[in-house]
Every structure is written in C-alpha cells, then in structure tokens.
C-alpha cells in the first residue's frame, strides 16, 4: 500500500517544537490521523479511541524534550507511546496486552494507513457529501434528519450518500 503523503523532514519540525512548544501543532496535524487510526482499530468505541488518542498526544507533548533524533520517523515514536497507553488501558480493563504485538505482526500497519487515508479523504469530499457522511456514519442520524437539516429531499440525500461512498471507494482503490 502506498503510504500517505507526508512531509519529508520530521527532524526540522521536531527541533522547532522542542525550541518552541507552539510548533508542536504542526507535528500534531501531520500525525493525528495515523495515531487515531492506530488506537481506533483496537478500541471498543469512538469515545474510548478519542480518550486514548488524547492521552497519547498529551504524553508526547510532555516528553517531547526527551525525544532524540536517530533517523526513525516521528510517527514510530508516537506509535510506541500509543502502544504503552493501550497496554495500560487494557491491563486496567482486564485484557491481555500481549494481543497488541500479535495484532501488529498481522499486517496492522496497512490497515492503519488505510484508515488514516480514509479520514483525510472524508475531509477532502465536497461539502454536501462530507456533511452527509458525517451525519450518517459518525453521528448515525437518519436520512430524514439529514434531509431536514440540509433542506433537501430524502432522495437527494441518498444520492449524495451514494456519490460520497463511490468517491471514497474510488480514491482508496486508486491509492492502494
């Protein structure tokens, strides 16, 4: 699978963020989707995924000064923090953290890339299509609700939903 387009030079961003923490925002923007995807495929719900993702970035920001550039991508360091956060969470709820490493070996990275890419593709949809996707699949609202909110017919909303899913499938397929 082709990886998401990334900024090539993590090192400069990291050094800037270590000098001035407000520059961490750039690293956050670059890595959020993949960290969230890493967590989400192992979380029981969206709320749990969001809580754990927040914990990962808080820990990353707090320990940024200790990060030493050795040539490995910044995302690898974030995955390490995410794995620790998940392991701690799983121990707390009685799950075996060993499952994490098994999962990683079974092609976990491909799925993370695909999910991260999907999040970016949703952001890139036309505004009407993006709204329908968010209302239907993230907020799980009915076609009727969405039609009322957007002032369109239910048939039009179903068409938007079809076009949006076709667009996402096409772009995911092209970039695979």
């Amino acid at each position, binding site marked *: 699978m082709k990886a998401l387009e990334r900024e090539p*030079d993590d090192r400069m961003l990291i050094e800037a963020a270590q000098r001035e923490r407000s520059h961490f925002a750039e690293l*956050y923007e670059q890595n*959020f989707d993949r960290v969230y995807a890493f967590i989400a*495929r192992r979380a029981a719900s969206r709320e749990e*995924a*969001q809580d754990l993702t927040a914990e990962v970035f808080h820990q990353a920001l707090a320990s940024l000064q200790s990060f030493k550039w050795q040539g490995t991508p910044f995302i690898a360091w974030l995955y390490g923090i995410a794995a620790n956060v998940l392991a701690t969470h799983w121990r707390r709820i009685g799950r075996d953290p060993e499952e994490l490493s098994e999962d990683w070996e079974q092609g976990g990275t491909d799925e993370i890339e695909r999910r991260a890419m999907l*999040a970016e593709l*949703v952001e890139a949809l036309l505004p009407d299509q993006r709204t329908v996707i968010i209302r239907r699949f993230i907020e799980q609202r009915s*076609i009727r609700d969405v039609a009322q909110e957007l002032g369109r017919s239910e048939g039009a909303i179903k068409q938007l939903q079809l076009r949006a*899913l076709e667009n996402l499938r096409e772009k995911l397929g092209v970039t695979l």
Partner: protein
Amino acid sequence: MNRQAMADELDRRVEVLLAGTDPAGVEPEPLLAVASELGMLPAPKFKNRLKDELMEPYRAFAPAGASSEWAGASTLAGMVPLFSGKRAGLFPADHRSFLVSFVSHAALIALIASGIFVVRIPTIKPSGLTSELTYPLAGHGGGGSGDHSAVQATRGMPPKFSDQQLAPPVIVVRNPEPKLSIDATVLGPPAVKLPQSSHIGDLISSNIVMPSNGTGVGGAAGEGSGNGLGRGNGSGYGSGFDRGTGGGPFSRAGIIAPRAIYDPEPEYSDEARRVKHQGVVVLALVVDPQGKARDIRVARSLGMGLDEKAIEAVRKWRFTPGTKDGTPVPVQVNIEVNFRLY
C-alpha cells in the same frame, strides 16, 4: 437499475449496517466495506478540540492564530491591575506609574499627531508576494547606552535634544558632586520639545522600580551603545542609530534619502516555511553613491535562514542614491524585511 434506485438500495443496506444486524460471514460489497470503516472516524470537532487543549498553555505568548492571540490577550487583560487598584494581585498597582505612563504616552501621541516627531514611512508591498518592505526615512534616529547593569534602564523621560552633547544622560549618578554641573542632553533637533521631568529615563522601559542605567554600554543609559538613551546605538534617543529619535537612521538637514528602484522579493527559507515561522528582519546598511547596498548587517534577527534570505535579496537591490545639495552621498538606512505566510 437507475441512480435513484441504486441510492435507495444502498441506503437500505446502510441502515442494516448501522443497526448492527448485517448477517455475519457475508462479504460486504465494496461501498458497504467503506461505510463500515467510517463508523470509527473521530467526531468532527474532536481533532481541533484536542489541538486547542494541547496548545492552550503555549498560546498566551506564542505567535499563533488570531483566536489564540485574542484568548491570550484577554487572559492577560484579566491579570493586569486597573488604575483603581482592582485586580492588583499579580502586579501591584502604582498610581504614580500610571500617571507618568499616561502623561508620557499622551505627550508622545500629541507629538506624533502634530507631525513634528515622525514622518510618513513609505511601504512597498510587492504584489502577490510574501513579504513587505518599509524604509525608515528622514527624521528618525536614536541612541542607546548603559553601564552593563543587570536590569533595564529605569523608566522616565529623556532629556532635552541639543545640537551638542556635553553630558550624556545617566540615571544612576556615579559622581553626585561634580565640580562643574552640566545638564544632560541627547543629540537631536532642538526644535523637538519633549516634556521634561527630573526623572531621566527610558520612556518605554518596563523597569519602574529599580534605579539603573541599563544593560547597554557607553556609560549613559539604555540597552544600546553610545552616549544616548534607549535601545539603539548613538547619542540620540530611541531604537535607531547615530542621533535624533524615533528609530532608524538620522537624516541630517539637506540630505535626500535614497529610494529603491529595483527591489526583488526575498525568498522564504524552506526551514521557516515548514514551521510557519514569521516576523521581521531588520537590516542596517549603507546605500553608496552608486545606489548599491553595502556594509549590510543584521540589526534584528529572525533566524531559521530568513536573515540570510533577506540579505541575499537586499544585496541585489538598486537605489537612487541619497543626495546632499544635489551630490550623491553614502547614507545609512534600515530596511525592514517582513516575512509573512499567506
């Protein structure tokens, strides 16, 4: 099957998927496979909310977006004391300081409004490019000094302007009983009258408590060097050079300032663009009689390769030289190179 029928059929299956009653073991069609992955995407505002939460402690004083600047400003506004003495917990209110500050600022505003104190600074904004350039011209200047004190020069009023400087301004007098007492002055146009006070000092210093000549060098007061007062270099007052006041080079009577006639835009450095580093590089240079920039030095640095980019661009500039009585003469100018990302 027409498009509407396809859309209806897809929605029926989406409803089944969202209800969680999709028959297990059946391979979903590609569109439904995509739909099933959408269910775990984060809530639309979560990403920005978390970013705001993470960056909150670094916002008040960081050059971030407009909203965070306002947030920081309002936070600070809640902390500083009022003239009435309310909210004096963090910074104790001193009514005298308010009074001195108010009078000083009112005097400065009056001078600026009268047109005596400053002249118009022309701004060149190359179309569609990323920086803007300004030239401080006639009427500016400055000075600075200090005696290596650990703290800034005490806030106060600068002494009178004079054509001659027999004694530089000092705040902490090392020789309290001189045999010949001479009033301190700063070099500048005597026609410019500043409100006088027995408390000589730097108008914009934040030090209102501790008597200090400032951190500069030269034996007078301020953060610069020379025999003047302020943050610049020279015998005037302010952040500029030579003499006079107001920042920038002093323009002597009869000298017509140089003007840029060819001013290619500086490039952004990759390093600064990547982290959206913005700001102003101030270059001090001499425009020679041939209209070329020489002796370029960085008066205010921005770092991340932008100083070099500014110098690289300004080195290519060509000017109509400054003239005195119609004869081209070398003139020192400051050029502000404003790096902004749009």
